């Protein structure tokens, strides 16, 4: 069943949190649309924010594939992000001290390759150990990468960072000249508030297309992986690694694959950021980025791809939205309080919804195995959250089962006796 074939059924099947998220998202989009039409929000800046949200969604996808799927604690999100960003920038920027001027695709390959090597090097000594060793090693890695970027001027320009980075589509046929080729447009929906759509807008549109492409492809890969036996082994490792080992799974290999995959996605976000912002500096590798991404994943629901997407968007909304609150009659300056707001948000979520806003809902079995003929139907509920009344009913039923267990009466009654 899909929204296109059965919209009413799909909407009716939503759980309360899903309906809530859908409602809030629609309201938020309407608000943005009105703000755009009214000229309160510049269209180019809006697209920049969409790009930023896509970047955070990518970072959240990366961490989700490590922590959410496999339970790997990685505190070096910013490091892998920075490796991707610097890898791309060093290959393409005019100010690059070692290379520069290469096609952005070369930068993409270099950024991802360095992230791959780094992930393997960190994974080899730590992934055979308990999860906390990876956490400690990744914490150290984040600082090492940041300090190397800051201090090795011959390589990275140090604190000056790298400027003169071209757009991702520089050198591409058609797309490289697309922003200049598009005519400037002037729209005036609200009298006195004209909207200008010129070259920067079209350039930002390309960036949005790029991040949608990156995030869409990543979502597709992770969604498929999550529902596969591969993903199931990762989820088993997260719940109980010993069980996976006892059943013949090479958990070290699976953890390495998960760690490398997540690190590559983070580096991909870094590559995109480089071409979105057109400048990278050591400040982009600050630990706060890692913190934001962890919050996004926990807020959205660990192990949920759509939760990671939602969390990434919420983080950017809070981070950037607080800048606009000064335009209203707020008695305090909220922008410096955004960390506090995020902290409060995560405390509230942990208190009232520890599984996150959109945790994984459905049974994750390879689609053709459950949808094909001759196999059991896919359950309507599975691990899906139940409506409150169903939940209570099930709880009492299970409590009864356990009580039967203790009393020596099996849940299936005496008929099951030999």
């Amino acid at each position, binding site marked *: 069943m899909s929204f296109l074939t059965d919209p009413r059924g799909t909407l009716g099947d939503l759980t309360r949190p899903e309906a809530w998220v859908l409602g809030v998202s629609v309201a938020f989009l309407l608000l943005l649309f009105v703000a755009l039409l009214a000229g309160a929000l510049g269209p180019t800046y809006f697209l920049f924010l969409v790009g930023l949200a896509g970047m955070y969604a990518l970072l959240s996808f990366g961490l989700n594939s490590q922590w959410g799927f496999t339970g790997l604690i990685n505190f070096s999100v910013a490091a892998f992000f920075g490796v991707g960003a610097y890898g791309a920038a060093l290959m393409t920027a005019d100010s690059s001290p070692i290379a520069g001027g290469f096609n952005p695709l070369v930068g993409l390959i270099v950024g991802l390759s360095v992230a791959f090597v780094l992930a393997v090097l960190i994974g080899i000594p730590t992934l055979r150990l308990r999860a906390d060793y990876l956490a400690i090693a990744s914490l150290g890695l984040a600082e090492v990468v940041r300090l190397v970027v800051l201090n090795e001027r011959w390589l990275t320009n140090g604190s000056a960072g790298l400027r003169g980075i071209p757009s991702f589509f520089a050198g591409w046929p058609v797309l490289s000249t697309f922003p200049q080729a598009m005519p400037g447009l002037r729209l005036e929906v609200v009298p006195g508030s004209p909207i200008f759509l010129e070259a920067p807008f079209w350039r930002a549109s390309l960036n949005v297309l790029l991040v949608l492409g990156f995030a869409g492809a990543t979502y597709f*890969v992770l969604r*498929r*992986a999550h529902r*596969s*036996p*591969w993903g*199931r*082994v990762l*989820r*088993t490792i*997260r*719940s*109980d690694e*010993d*069980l*996976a*080992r*006892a*059943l*013949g*799974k*090479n*958990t070290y290999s699976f953890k390495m*694959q998960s760690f490398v*995959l997540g690190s590559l996605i983070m580096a991909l976000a870094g590559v995109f950021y480089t071409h979105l912002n057109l400048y990278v500096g050591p400040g982009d590798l600050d630990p706060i980025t890692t913190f934001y991404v962890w919050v996004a994943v926990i807020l959205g629901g660990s*192990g949920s791809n759509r939760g990671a997407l939602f969390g990434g968007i919420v983080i950017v909304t809070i981070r950037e939205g607080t800048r606009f609150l000064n335009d209203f009659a707020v008695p305090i300056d909220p922008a410096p309080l955004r960390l506090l707001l995020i902290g409060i948000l995560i405390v509230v979520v942990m208190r009232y919804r520890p599984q996150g806003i959109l*945790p*994984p809902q459905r*049974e*994750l*079995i*390879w*689609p*053709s*195995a*459950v949808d*094909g003929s*001759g*196999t*059991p139907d896919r*359950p309507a509920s*599975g*691990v899906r959250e139940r409506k409150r009344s169903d939940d209570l009913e*099930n709880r009492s039923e*299970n409590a009864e*089962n*356990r009580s*039967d*267990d*203790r*009393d*020596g*009466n*099996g*849940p*299936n009654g*005496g008929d*099951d*006796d*030999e």
Partner: protein
Amino acid sequence: MSDSANATTERTESGESDATGGPQIGAVAGKDDAVLRVDDLQKSFGGLTATDHATFEVERGTITGLIGPNGAGKSTIFNLISGFYEPDGGTVTVNGTDVTGMEPYEVAEHGLVRTFQTPRKLEGMTVREAMLVGPRNQPGESFLNLFTSPGTVGDSESANLADAERILADFEIDHLATQPATDISGGQMKLVELARAMLAEPEVLLLDEPVAGVNPTLAKKLKTQIRRLNERGTTFVLIEHDMEFVMDLADPIVVLDQGSVLTEGTPEAVRSDDRVIDAYLGGGA
């Protein structure tokens, strides 16, 4: 008792007459069809000797009970056999292959799978999803196959799903298939754990206290399933404190005391062995 079980008893009784002749119990020249050989196994934790030159063999097609008082080293031996602990000395051989020091997944690849004393919960999975973790070497466990051979992955997943549903039905717990795996009772979890282990198609299955904390009804069901699977060819080694359960099901029985093998033989022989009574029952029984 089934014919095969009777045959097992006869084989074991003949082995027992060899074994009871001296202290080197189990260190016989070798049973003709031993699927598991534990030879002079040693393990210490600091100053504590948990396994002290333990030697025994498990013949193919048997249900071998591993009993002993608390602290006798039963679980340590399971951990040593299945690769969770590395022994200080001695060897473990599965199907003629020396698996000593191998990782647990490598031991499993040689056909030896184990369950745990406390059933392992798989968060966020339904029972049938949890079952699907069992089969070994699934095509869908390769990341590349997910994108290069999705058809093969789908076929394999369908076949495994059908197997899982069939085994759940055999175990009479198919009604739990779409329940969250964490929401079922402890006894049901034990059944699911056994059913899942069977999907790994083990030749030898180590069961660590399969009926601990399980009500008598489910314990009976577990016993029936173990016996049925054994008749189909799976070899079992089980640790169990429920003497009635183990004496009724297992033959032979290996008795451990202070990390070494005290004796082994038929339930009757073990029950009447003074050394077992001394060690296990404190000499009061």
